[in-house]
């Protein structure tokens, strides 16, 4: 009973924090149908701002800056107001231009905003934790309930604050004219516009209030756990989103309920399940995935929110944007279009260039970087099948990559070397067997994970795949016997062919290049056929595709399987080229990075993923020569995020969009012309 009571208390505190953040997601989703992934970062900003305002001095950009040292309530109020303003500014700059864009655009933008905010916070406050200062309330004796449950005064304050904030919000929505306008827009935006509700102002208000709630949750979290850190908003943000979906996104009481349930389940699960603390993150995501499968609209939500918008980032978006920007791209576009029209010869030309570069580059250092470009280009190509061609935003792709890397590493190191004492050189051929094997395994895995997502569309799909990705990562960390856990697996042998070691950077580059040829060739053959046409038709208009006789569910699974195959296939080589893997290699951030590379280069092209990878990875290195970047390496990620936001607004189809992919078999067209 004592133990239960204590867990219950912990769960309530956690639940209050999740509920407050979930309200942010729900409010904004209600009025603009946008899952603003950046609320996790606004949560983090609330924590940093409050902590900073309470301290007498803080290190900002590495220099000590005097701070006012406000008491908690004043600092909290300041932080909430500042974060609210940031939220409104973000909406104005990044989201408002995309109101009528396809759903994928604001979703990707919000991910980019997260990356920008997190990188900036790390630049400003540094990579270390900022300790939450001691203050009067926190020094009081805990309250003891039933002789056994210890509740600190601050725990009670957290719960009371959450309750008051929720009641206040409900009152605001029910009574004030702005609140009523918000509810009306949530019910039916077009109708709201027709009766003269200023929708932009209502949206701004939703962002202001939502961001304020996220900040409040963040500062309460920082207070409870005693620190602020630039990545602290990530997991609570996802959990809060889970809570919002759980309750039925768009519904404020739903968010409160969802937060509470999630907090309790997590606390009780951590307490009672064997090794529960380690698995507690997985609990939330399993709950999320199960719920989305059985009742996508959540406990209190409405089913129609799970609807697909028609159109994609590629269909019809090309003419948008400022004239000067178009002018910049015009030249390259013409060149790419000519290259794409040339088709196979252009591909051979590019391959020849890559071979020459591989032969000429003298430094091992740059060869390694170019190998990374090819690996990331291949992975991005795999992701491109599902996101770029089939139009399904998959945030769990890294799981397939992880399957490939772990399969080969476990076989070579844990089973053969450690288990049976077989030296890797003796079984060099296993690598070549593992490539297709891992591909098939990951493809099977992809179908398994894809099946429950078939009913889901748009935002819900992204959230569910994200849940899967996180579950796989948590499993990789905790299933020690299989994966060696967070220590990872060391000593994975470099590739070897008939006893000839291919460990040199140059050999590895060419190995990667050969695999890339296989991947691009196979994917291109599938895309340039009725399969690719079915994928693109699904991306552009799923219902119309069905009406043309395309079994859309089956073709979505084919897209998952293809994407999974590439992920697993490349994952094998990745492990052998890195010679060390750990769950950290396969984080959600990697998935987001791959997504950004595809979007940067151009969704739905063969060239785009490689262009994105080349630009980004080479830039990462070159920028390190700048003193400013040496001091603040994270600013590079902030820049990537900014570039992506600009792209989404002005050129959503990506840089290499004009390397348009034809969807008919090349040979078939050639004959016809003759």
């Amino acid at each position, binding site marked *: 009973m004592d133990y239960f009571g204590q867990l219950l208390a912990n769960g309530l505190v956690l639940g209050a924090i999740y509920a407050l953040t979930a309200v942010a997601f729900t409010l904004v989703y209600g009025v603009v149908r946008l899952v603003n992934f950046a609320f996790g970062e606004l949560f983090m900003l609330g924590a940093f701002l409050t902590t900073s305002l309470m301290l007498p001095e803080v290190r900002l950009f590495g220099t000590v800056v005097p701070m006012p040292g406000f008491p908690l309530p004043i600092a909290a109020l300041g932080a909430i107001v500042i974060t609210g303003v940031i939220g409104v500014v973000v909406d104005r700059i990044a989201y408002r231009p995309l109101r009528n864009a396809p759903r994928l655009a604001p979703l990707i933008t919000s991910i980019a905003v997260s990356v920008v905010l997190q990188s900036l916070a790390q630049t400003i406050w540094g990579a270390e934790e900022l300790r939450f200062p001691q203050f009067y309330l926190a020094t009081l004796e805990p309250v003891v309930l039933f002789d056994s449950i210890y509740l600190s005064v601050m725990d009670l304050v957290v719960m009371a604050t959450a309750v008051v904030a929720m009641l206040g919000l409900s009152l605001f929505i029910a009574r004030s004219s702005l609140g009523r306008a918000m509810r009306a827009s949530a019910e039916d935006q077009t109708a709201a516009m027709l009766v003269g509700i200023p929708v932009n102002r209502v949206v701004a208000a939703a962002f202001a209030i939502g961001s304020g709630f996220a900040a409040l949750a963040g500062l309460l979290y920082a207070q409870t756990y005693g620190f602020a850190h630039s990545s602290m908003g990530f997991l609570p943000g996802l959990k809060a989103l889970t809570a919002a979906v759980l309750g039925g996104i768009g519904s404020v009481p739903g968010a409160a309920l969802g937060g509470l349930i999630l907090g309790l389940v997590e606390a009780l699960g951590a307490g009672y399940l064997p090794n529960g603390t380690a698995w507690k993150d997985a609990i939330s995501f399993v709950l999320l995935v199960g719920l989305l499968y059985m009742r996508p609209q959540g406990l209190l939500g409405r089913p129609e929110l799970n609807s697909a918008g028609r159109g994609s980032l590629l269909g019809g978006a090309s003419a948008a944007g400022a004239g000067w920007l178009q002018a910049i791209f015009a030249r390259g576009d013409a060149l790419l279009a000519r290259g794409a029209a040339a088709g196979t010869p252009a591909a051979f030309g590019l391959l020849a260039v890559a071979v020459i570069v591989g032969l000429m580059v003298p430094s091992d250092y740059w060869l390694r970087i170019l190998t990374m470009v090819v690996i990331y280009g291949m992975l991005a190509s795999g992701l491109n099948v599902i996101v770029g061609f089939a139009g399904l935003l998959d945030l769990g792709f890294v799981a397939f990559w992880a399957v490939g890397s772990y399969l080969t590493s476990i076989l070579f190191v844990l089973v053969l070397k450690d288990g049976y004492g077989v030296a890797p050189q003796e079984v060099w051929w296993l690598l070549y067997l593992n490539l297709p094997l891992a591909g098939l395994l990951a493809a099977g895995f992809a179908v398994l994970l894809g099946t429950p997502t078939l009913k889901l569309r748009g935002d819900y799909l992204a959230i569910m795949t994200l849940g899967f990705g996180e579950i796989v990562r948590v499993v990789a960390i905790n299933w020690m016997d299989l994966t060696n856990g967070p220590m990872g697996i060391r000593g994975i042998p470099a590739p070897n062919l008939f006893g000839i070691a291919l460990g040199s950077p140059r050999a590895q580059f060419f190995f990667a290049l050969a695999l890339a040829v296989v991947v691009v060739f196979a994917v291109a053959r*599938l895309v340039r*056929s009725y399969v690719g*046409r*079915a994928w693109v038709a699904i991306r552009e208009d799923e*219902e119309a*595709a069905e*009406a*043309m006789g395309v079994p859309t569910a089956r073709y979505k699974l084919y897209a998952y399987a293809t994407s999974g195959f590439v992920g697993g296939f490349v994952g094998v080589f990745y492990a052998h080229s890195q010679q060390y893997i750990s769950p950290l290699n396969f984080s959600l951030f990697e998935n987001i990075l791959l997504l950004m590379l595809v979007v940067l280069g151009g969704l739905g092209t063969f060239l785009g993923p490689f262009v994105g990878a080349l630009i980004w990875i080479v830039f990462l290195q070159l920028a390190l020569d700048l003193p400013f970047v040496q001091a603040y390496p994270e600013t590079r990620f902030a820049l990537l995020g900014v570039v992506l936001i600009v792209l989404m607004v002005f050129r959503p189809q990506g840089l290499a969009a004009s390397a348009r992919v034809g*969807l008919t078999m090349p040979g078939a067209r050639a004959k016809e012309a003759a």
Partner: protein
Amino acid sequence: MMGAETGALLEARQVIVRFGGLEAVGGLDMAVARGAIHGLIGPNGAGKTTVLNVLTGFIRPTAGRLVFDGEEIGGLNVNGFARRGLARTFQNIRLFGAMTVLESVLVGAHQRFSASAPALIFGARTARAAERAMIARAHELLAFVGLGRDVADRVATTLSYGHQRRVEIARALMSSPKLLLLDEPLAGMNALEKQEIADLVRQVRAQGITVLLIEHDMQIVRSLCDHLTVLEYGKLLADGEPEQVLADPAVQAAYLGRAR
């Protein structure tokens, strides 16, 4: 009195569709005879598109049965309807963005491809032959609907409105359907274009494809259709030969009543 023995290709029995409180279709019985050009008419909001959506599986009716070519099809997916031989166009054109005309039309032939993934990747001869045959058929159909070869490689959504309608018809025909359902194919066209599309519909029928079409222009309907079904407020108002149906005072009242 209705049924396979009377030669009906498609039959709907006691179809009811409710949207919340609104009964958009209320207990409709209708039969489309084999080889007919069957007109579905009625004032705006009468429920014509809703009926067409039911007949193509887009909307699962609240109650009622559908029999197509002697087979119960009510429980199928939308793609199942298409695979049985029902092809449609949309009142608001729905072509695939970012696809060329040729590619869009080829999507209509989806069910006629069967190459496996390895066959595609290794470029098997059968896979190439199928692709070539379908591309040739697509060009034929584009010519059939009155589009020149020069439009084949243009992005479909950049074409003029009239041409987009024709691409949609070609796409629907690509599946070699038994029944072609057209939702206001003449809307927004000038008199000449209307005549062209009407001729096209006759040619389609001449190829043995039954046509169901929704249309507001009574002149065209009278000359084109063999049979008319009139809806008002989701209910059957009249059904029969065009001359006889259009002379029905109730039908005239329905149109005049709304025309104010």
